[in-house]
């Protein structure tokens, strides 16, 4: 699963700063955190309209009180096994560049406080397609919390 890609560097995010609080969520066995400042809201499963010809990572579009948001299938983004057909993934509405998008994840965890000391660069041991989505990692109670960068989805080719 490791891709050797020489053309892009993993740690491109210029101002890689540790956020004060992270909203955590799980996709498969991975635990992610996203800066609480970027999170707009969290919703249960929403009716979704599929978009023909869309990139694979786009599961569809949703209507959030009059705004149309692109819904990203996090499992597809991470090349993990697909959601079960009857699964009802949680929506995390986050800001990515100039727009809001919805991340479809397995479950939401707690909001946690992070000690900046524990914030590190993305290790090269992570598969490239995962590392490209992160701002960094946080070592926490022996586990790795992946600091997710929403804007990274938008540049993803999605195949």
């Amino acid at each position: 699963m490791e891709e050797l890609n020489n053309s892009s560097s993993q740690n491109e995010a210029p101002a890689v700063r540790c956020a004060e609080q992270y909203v955590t969520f799980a996709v498969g066995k991975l635990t992610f955190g996203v800066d609480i400042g970027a999170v707009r809201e969290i919703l249960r499963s929403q009716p979704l309209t599929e978009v023909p010809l869309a990139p694979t990572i786009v599961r569809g579009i949703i209507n959030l009180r009059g705004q149309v948001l692109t819904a990203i299938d996090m499992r597809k983004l991470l090349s993990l096994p697909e959601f079960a057909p009857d699964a009802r993934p949680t929506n995390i509405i986050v800001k990515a560049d100039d727009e809001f998008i919805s991340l479809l994840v397995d479950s939401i965890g707690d909001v946690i406080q992070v000690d900046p000391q524990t914030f590190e660069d993305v290790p090269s041991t992570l598969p490239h397609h995962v590392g490209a989505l992160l701002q960094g990692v946080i070592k926490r109670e022996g586990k790795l919390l992946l600091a997710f960068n929403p804007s990274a989805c938008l540049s993803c080719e999605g195949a």
Partner: protein
Amino acid sequence: MSIQDDATLEFLGESLENLERYDQELLFLESNRTSNDTINKIFRIVHTMKGTCGFFDFKKLESVSHVGENLLDSLRSGKIEVSEPIISALLGLGDALRTIIVSISELGNEGDADFGILITRLTQLNEAEGSTNEAESSVSAPHDEVSQATSSATSEEDELSKLFAAGQAEFAASQEPSPVPPELATQQLPQQDESKKTEIVETALRVDINLLNKLMNLVGELVLARNQLLQFTKYHDDNEFVATSQALNLITSELQEGIMRTRMQPVGNVLNRFPRIVRDVAMACGKQVNLVLQGKETELDKSIIEAIKDPLTHIIRNAVDHGIEAPAERSQAGKSPEGTLSIRAYQEGGQVIIEVTDDGKGLHLEKIKQKAIERGLVSPDRAAKLSEHEIHGLIFLPGFSTAEKVTSISGRGVGMDVVRSNIERVGGSVDLTSTFGKGSTFTLKIPLTLAIIPALIVTADDRRYAIPQVNLIELVRVEQERISQLIEEVHGASFYRLRGKLLPLVDLRQQLDLAAPPPQRSTNIVVVQGDEHRFGLIVDTINDTEEIVVKPLGKLLKSIDAFSGVTIMGDGKLALILDVVGLARQAGVRKGTPPEVVVNSDHSEGEKVQLLVFNVDGEQRAAVPLDQVHRLEKVDSKALEKAEGKTVVQYRGGILPLIDLREVLGGRSAGYQGVLRVFVHNIGDRSVGFVVDSIVDICEEVVNVGTAFGTPGRRGSAVIQGAVTDLVDLPALVAQTGLEYDSSMEVLWKS
């Protein structure tokens, strides 16, 4: 220096607006030289500007406007008379002031341009007392130089600078403008101006356009929320709830309308710059042009106005430069030496139409064909088969230009294709009609607003999609039995034979990678066109026309060719908006297909036909060409009688058989009760009466009237006045119901 503070921005904005008015007044003054009122208006504009820029320390602006003010003061006191050189110089002043202001707003400083020559010229004009003859006589020595300079110059600036090159030899260049005696300056400002000015200021506000956009978005969302709320009122009977919802509904509608109006601006804002442009271009190429503007108050969304400014300007420059002939040439052709260029704007349906008409030499078909062939834009074979209208259309192809010499004004070969794509980018269209020797007309059609558009809703694979009405040409339904006759396969692609032309077919399900449909009784084809790509889109069903709010797609979805946006339907579900041009591209539909797949071209396409539109029953609409309707009558059902099994009525000394059109067209007939709405159709010297539900309207529409297809008695469908309307083929209907056309013999009844 920082230029971002509000006061400065306001000053810059106001000044630009004032300079536009300044130009207009000057041009008016040019034709009405004794109008003191106008001179005063112009003076006040410059005077105000000079005064205000003193607060901002814009020295250059101040000194330039000061010289202008002096000259204007002399004009209004009668010391000097208005003349052509003065108007030109004052126009130059306006340009100079504009240049400085633009420099301030873009660079933060007044720029490096040196206006010494202009200042000299204005001073010089001011010092000549009495009539301009004196001024001219003192320039008499370099006069020849001057006139030569004028005719060979290609721009106002060149003209001025050449003038000055000549003039400077004669006059000592004076950089110091003569100061206006203070008493004179203050005295001349009548008190009533102040109050008039305040009046004008109070009826309008300057509002940040971003704020307006934000309000517009919010109202859009309010509309959607209101739509959803209205859905709920269907299921809840609570009176108070329903009443409150109704109130909310009304308020929202009015708010929506009001906000949309704030963005609407009169198209005159754009049109008003054209007198100046026409004047400049005409002078530069030695033409005489009379510009007529109509419909300046017609309103358009501000963003659309911005978008059409450049294309319109190009069309107009073109018309003056290439369209209208030189006075001598015109006289020879028996035309008046002065050409007329008319710009007419009006609203029709959901669009604003702008027609630019010139009475110049029109398009030369052969020359255009040759040029297009030369440039490799069309093959000689194909060119030979093009219709006149199609040849005109060639000028819109990239890389085309018929200018014999490229002038700095137009004709660089970058022209018409850019004009067309700019206009189409905002959802509009541009078309050209021309008669060689007589003139040309450009017709621009532009949507009223981008945000809310009328669209046809269609279904494919249980999902709804929206097709903007601006792309809609017509609707066709082909019954299963006739498919083999009317749909053809050419090189693996499907085509539909529509009135003699082969229309490429695009299957929406296929394009969107959706499953193939179950076998159907009939095929629904929506004939669409975008950017010269015309094709028939096969969909599952055709729903109705709706006004939809256009919402943009996110970054990841924007790049999909097939979609141009998404809308939220009344039930909260999302419908993707189809991008007709994108679909064409994706499906590989070639541009301008009729010339590609050569069939005889049907010249009756696109004629304006007068139609009688009527209701077949409560829901269905149909139309017949008005010239097939002899009279409209109301018939009391009590007067009906039976003859040989047919229902008839005594009418004008004869017998009028009746056909229930409602039944024939597959609608619900209420039978013959009460008063019937009948229109009378003549067959030779006999008449037939057709019973309908009610008459809707008589209108004139561009409709393709062709041969029958599919269901007997129908000629196809069109979207007329926003509603899907069947076009009825009366002759076929009559034949079907058992009457025979025979103008020379008696009408025979068939049982």
